[in-house]
């Protein structure tokens, strides 16, 4: 068995092991530290000697660590009662415990960055170093962020029902984070969302999982070998992962059948229509516009209306797209890039080139900036000939 496989298994057990400790009366912050210690120990020890009951092993080691830490901490003398007691086997943690952990780590009292860090550590089982690398901050900074987050939720009762919308928001943010490090955040977000979907039957959880799977399926086609962005219409669809697409569509259809539409299901439906098209030309833009209308009703987000303008441009022609765009605030992110694209399709290359160059100056990341500059350069080169 490779170390890789072990790590995946070890980390998948994180929330249930943590839940056992909390159920036995350990406070969340101390239990979380103890589980991290046990995970590190497992990564070290298991490649040579994998226990037959991995979860039992982790619980035993984590509980021992918790007791050691509690004993060592004189200020926590009041917990001595607990220490002297042999741990009762305790109630078997259920999937509900995993769900409670998600709620706790995405608690509304936490800022998004704190909730993300805490979720990745306490539910995902990542180390502070791995999370710090993924988000390009010093390890000490991430350690502080996590311990502050733990303090913030320390008073929250473990059995309080939470809001699934905050959990989904956190998982969505993890998935959408483009940074690279040792940890594949997109894959990690999918793993955590799968785990949540297994613990909690909810159409929007399924919708988010479908959305992630459908976007992840296109990942290999999204960048050229030199790292530059490849727009959807130009992607080599042969490189899309058909297995992930089939899974995503299956999950989405089951969710939609329950007739409780939400924003993630609607977004996934749009991604599914793109995935369904054998070529960019065969995309069902009319249906995509309808889904954007639905999405605009659900969220009232200006970003949705901007994307809708692109879809309208495809369904009814660039003039219609520009008309839809004219109704939106020009200071919206990517507004200029969308205008450039629609003007190009309308045949006004001079305006399009000027707008692409302007959009490049406003681009929020390097890959987009390079892409937009290339678009301007491409049109300028064509105009010179």
């Amino acid at each position: 068995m490779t170390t890789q496989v072990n790590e995946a298994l070890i980390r998948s057990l994180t929330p249930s092991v943590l839940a056992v400790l909390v159920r036995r009366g350990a406070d969340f912050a101390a239990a979380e530290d103890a589980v991290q210690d046990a995970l590190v120990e497992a990564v070290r020890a298991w490649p040579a000697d994998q226990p037959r009951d991995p979860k039992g092993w982790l619980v035993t080691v984590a509980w021992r660590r918790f007791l050691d830490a509690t004993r060592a901490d004189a200020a926590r003398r009041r917990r001595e009662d607990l220490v002297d007691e042999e741990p009762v086997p305790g109630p078997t943690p259920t999937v509900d415990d995993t769900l409670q952990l998600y709620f706790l780590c995405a608690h509304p009292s936490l800022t998004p960055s704190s909730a993300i860090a805490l979720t990745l550590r306490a539910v995902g089982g990542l180390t502070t170093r791995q999370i710090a690398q993924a988000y390009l901050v010093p390890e000490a900074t991430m350690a502080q962020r996590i311990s502050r987050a733990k303090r913030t939720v320390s008073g929250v009762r473990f059995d309080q029902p939470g809001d699934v919308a905050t959990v989904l928001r956190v998982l969505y943010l993890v998935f959408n984070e483009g940074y690279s490090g040792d940890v594949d955040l997109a894959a990690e977000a999918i793993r955590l969302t799968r785990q949540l979907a297994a613990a909690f039957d909810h159409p929007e959880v399924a919708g988010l999982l479908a959305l992630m799977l459908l976007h992840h399926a296109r990942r290999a086609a999204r960048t050229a070998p030199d790292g530059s962005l490849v727009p959807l219409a130009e992607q080599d669809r042969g490189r899309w992962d058909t297995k992930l697409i089939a899974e995503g569509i299956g999950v989405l259809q089951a969710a939609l059948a329950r007739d409780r539409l939400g924003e993630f299901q609607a977004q996934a439906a749009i991604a599914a229509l793109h995935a369904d098209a054998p070529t960019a030309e065969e995309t069902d833009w009319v249906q995509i516009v309808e889904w954007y209308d639905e999405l605009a009703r659900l969220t009232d987000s200006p970003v949705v209306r901007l994307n809708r303008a692109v879809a309208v441009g495809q369904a009814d022609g660039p003039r219609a797209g520009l008309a839809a765009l004219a109704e939106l605030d020009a200071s919206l992110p990517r507004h200029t890039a969308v205008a450039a694209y629609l003007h190009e399709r309308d045949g006004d290359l001079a305006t399009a080139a000027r707008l692409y160059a302007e959009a490049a100056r406003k681009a929020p990341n390097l890959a987009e900036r390079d892409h937009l500059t290339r678009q301007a350069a491409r049109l300028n080169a064509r105009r010179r000939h």
Partner: protein
Amino acid sequence: MAKYLLLKHYRGAPAPVNNVPMDQWTPEEISAHVQYMNDFAGRLEKTGEFVDGQALAPEGTFVRYDGEGRPPVTDGPFAETKDLIAGWMVIDVDSYERAVELAGELSAAPGAGGKPIHEWLELRPFLTAPPTITE
């Protein structure tokens, strides 16, 4: 070892030799430029001289304290600001000569026509911690 900041300017540096705006290059020239920059950073990582590199958006805001209980004042962006940083690279090298050599290499990144831009980069030494042995 000494740390140096290599500063790249949108505005404020003397005009480069090959001074053509990027949107007037061909897409292939842009790709070659991006590749050169990536390769340069990759090479410095391999030699153990790379510390950090970041690009900055062109638009920024000036902010200052405005007194107890008042929100900070913001102003700008100022179109007339002479100096506008585009990005930086921090290197950790053995000597000033090595820092100059690397800055020269970075400035040779290809631009329009595939020819070096000869862009002016600003090289600034970090102020260091005081040494232990002083006499």
